[in-house]
């Protein structure tokens, strides 16, 4: 069908020209010299005014990291990273750490305005209709401001940058940091443990339902820097929190590294909902530049009947390597993973999840929707396993791929491991292209091809979009439209 071919060609042409967030801001920065050594780690720790135990923790991780080899099992290709050619710390001179909104450099505020991130509480309050969202804004290596802190505090919720939490709540950080993703976990997590600079800390005490959505907005701005974010979220017995992260970066020819670690802990009857809209710069149409997004995200359903739900919309990054996982330790706990991964241009995605069933009567659900266009490679890699003692484990996995054009690749690599006769696992995967019948039906009803494709793709991902908090669902839908269609929103 000619119209289809036309659209495929057009989609193939679209690339970073559509990347709205590629602007760069000139802000005077305080940077660590390039390179990685114990001295650099001491430098970061000193900048953050950290206690001695934290420095030791970092140094331990660093020494461990030196003995590790970079993993090669993912289906991604990239030139070897020179870890000594990266600035491990970069902070705006004017705002070297979290502060009140009035003290934030106006240039920085402009950045967030441009990105559409609301940081002024009164402005947010003025918009009565919109639900309120507390934001932690991380600019390169530091959190510059966290909104609604006071109001959250009244409810008993702690929401601040992890650097602040290390100083102000060392007992909580000590108790939970590294208990879900140990410093020894994997190459990038170990590196992160040594050099992480900022990220968010959330603590929701027993019985509290967090009164608003929490979110962190990550911005990489400075050239030649890596961003090593560390986020820790704890929901005590019966607590509930919904958290969202967003990410963007300027357009650059060089590749920049983002190696985050996110740890979630849900105690008895607690629920954590973690949503990501990842829109790092994906590189240009030749495949030049873009973010390497090498992330370790893991949730520990530590308590009985606890629940952790990951929802991700991945449209950016040159390379994505990320498997938000759930350890279903508590009896009756539940893990969920909903994912949309869109790749275009030269993007490479190797993403999925792990559901590790340890407790009795645990259940998990995986819904993954991959859309590959251009010359991109899009891989779902997932593991579902039961421990021998994990009676009545249940998993349902649905994993669908859609190919747009014949130069891209879509791959599915599930690992299914049953170790108990009461386990019930159901896994389904499909790969197809947009059905010509569906397309024709839309065309016949007067919908132009591009809009029809957007419509069908949105139908394809609907199940996952529904899992996002309302206000982000619309955003995510738009983003998918942009990454694939350009003009169609």
């Amino acid at each position: 069908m000619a119209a289809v071919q036309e659209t495929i060609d057009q989609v193939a042409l679209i690339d970073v020209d559509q990347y709205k967030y590629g602007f760069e801001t000139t802000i005077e920065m305080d940077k660590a010299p390039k390179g990685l050594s114990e001295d650099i780690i001491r430098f970061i720790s000193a900048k953050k005014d950290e206690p001695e135990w934290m420095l030791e923790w970092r140094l331990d991780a660093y020494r461990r990291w030196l003995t590790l080899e970079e993993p090669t099992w993912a289906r991604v290709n990239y030139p070897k990273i020179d870890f000594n050619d990266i600035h491990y710390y970069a902070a705006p001179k004017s705002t070297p750490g979290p502060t009140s909104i009035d003290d934030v450099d106006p240039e920085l505020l402009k950045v967030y305005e441009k990105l559409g991130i609301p940081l002024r509480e009164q402005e947010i309050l003025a918009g009565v209709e919109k639900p309120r969202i507390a934001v932690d804004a991380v600019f390169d290596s530091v959190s510059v401001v966290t909104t609604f802190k006071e109001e959250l505090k009244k409810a008993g919720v702690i929401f601040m940058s992890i650097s602040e939490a290390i100083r102000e709540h060392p007992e909580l950080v000590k108790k939970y940091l590294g208990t879900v993703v140990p410093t020894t976990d994997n190459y990038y997590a170990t590196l992160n443990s040594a050099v992480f600079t900022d990220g968010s800390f959330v603590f929701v005490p027993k019985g509290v339902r967090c009164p608003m959505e929490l979110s962190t907005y990550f911005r990489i701005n400075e050239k030649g820097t890596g961003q090593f974010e560390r986020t820790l979220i704890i929901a005590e017995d019966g607590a509930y929190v919904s958290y969202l992260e967003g990410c963007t970066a300027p357009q650059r020819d060089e590749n920049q590294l983002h190696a985050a670690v996110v740890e979630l802990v849900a105690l008895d009857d607690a629920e954590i909902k973690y949503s990501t809209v990842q829109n790092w710069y994906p590189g240009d149409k030749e495949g030049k530049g873009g973010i390497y997004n090498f992330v370790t995200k893991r949730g520990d359903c530590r308590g009985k009947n606890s629940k952790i739900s990951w929802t991700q919309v991945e449209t950016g990054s040159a390379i994505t390597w990320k498997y938000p996982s759930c350890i279903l330790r508590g009896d009756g706990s539940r893990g969920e993973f909903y994912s949309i991964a869109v790749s275009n241009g030269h993007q490479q995605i190797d993403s999925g999840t792990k559901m590790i069933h340890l407790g009795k009567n645990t259940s998990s659900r995986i819904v993954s929707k991959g859309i590959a266009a251009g010359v991109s490679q899009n891989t779902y890699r997932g593991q579902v396993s039961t421990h021998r003692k994990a009676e009545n484990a249940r998993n349902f996995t649905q994993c669908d791929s859609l190919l747009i054009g014949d130069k891209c690749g879509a791959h599915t690599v599930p690992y299914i491991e049953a170790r108990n006769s009461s386990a019930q696992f159901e896994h389904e995967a499909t790969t197809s292209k947009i059905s010509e019948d569906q397309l024709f039906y839309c065309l016949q009803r007067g919908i132009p091809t591009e809009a029809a494709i957007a419509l069908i793709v949105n139908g394809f991902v609907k199940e996952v979009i529904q899992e996002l908090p309302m206000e982000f669902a619309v955003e995510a839908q738009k983003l998918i439209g942009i990454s694939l269609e350009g003009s169609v929103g």
Partner: protein
Amino acid sequence: MNMQTAITMTAAETALVDAYTAMIGELPGEGAVLSARDALLADLKRQGLPTRRVEAWHYTDLRALLRAVPAHDPSAFAQRVEPLVAGSSVLSVLNGKADVKTAPAGINLRSYAESLVEGVAAADLIERDTDDAIGRINGSFVRDGFEIEVPEGTVLEQPLELQLVQSAGQSHSRFPVTFGANSRATVIERHLSVGDAASLVTVVSDLILDDSAEITWIILQQQGASDSHLAQVNFDLGANAKLRLFIINAGGKLVRQEIHGVTTGEGADFQLRGINLLGGDTHTDVTFTLGHDVPNTTSKEVIRNVLFDRAKGVFQGQIRVAPDAQKTDAKMACNTLLLSDDADFSAKPELEIFADDVQCGHGATVIDINPTHLYYLRARGIPENKARAMLVNAFVDEIVEELEDEGLIETLETIISAWLEKHA
């Protein structure tokens, strides 16, 4: 990284290397064949047996699982048995030695030992890729087998049975088989053990189907409970060729059955049906890769696993669709009934798709017996244990029923029922 440092050899690795030194003098073939054997053994020595770090062997750590290798036993005695289906032509390999009484009419045949002696076999003795441990071991040690050609247009009315009987020691056989254009045949590759001695059996079958050949190939593996069985079937399908491959594993201690195929002609169709009956302490791995290399080819794979006792089962299945292989239709299903808490099953069904106009999918389930089915049968007066047995039987018989040959279906169902009765 462990390539540079010399590995410490395990008992099995040492035994293989020693066996080579001991046997090489009397293994058939010289010159190019010998160099090919030497090269394969050198690789084996250098890399060792694969561990779980090798992705293709992720769930079958051969280095850890292959504990010992029985020495070749020239005095071992085995006899041919009655064919599975009356009236079949039987080609036996007894303890690794080909034994032909009468060559079946209509096909060209010679023992693989002859091919080795003549040197033409040298071209076969290569590794598929760096992970090909089976090709490496089998190529180093291969002693016999059959080279078979079913000429163009030949229709074999009766099945051809390749009967491998093992009583002790080790045997390494190969079966290069060419099916000419428009030929029709049913081949039964049957693996049996006599006696309780542990043996190591490796077998590689290379099947080439010319245009429009329609072949049914059945592998029935019933080796002893202490045997290691490492097998590989490679196939290449020409235009409109159809291969139906049935595999039943109902024996062996350590079993790895690999199936690797490509479709090289448009209109080719591949059907795989597998039944793994796993009990005792068996570790059985079926690993399958299929490359849809040209447009308009189809495939379907259905694997059914039943596990008792402490059995471990593995299914890895990979469907690749090449960039220009539009209109590929590929479906894969792997269903497992896990009937013991000490048994486990791992599945890795993979899709690797580089063309957009395709219909590909896979499904994998691990389930218990359907309680509604069980209740229905009980409500008709069938006691619970009997009802369970019926449902387990049904789970695998569904696959057997697809073989349209009534006699064959009955024979295989009898074997399956007997196995299930023994293990349930």
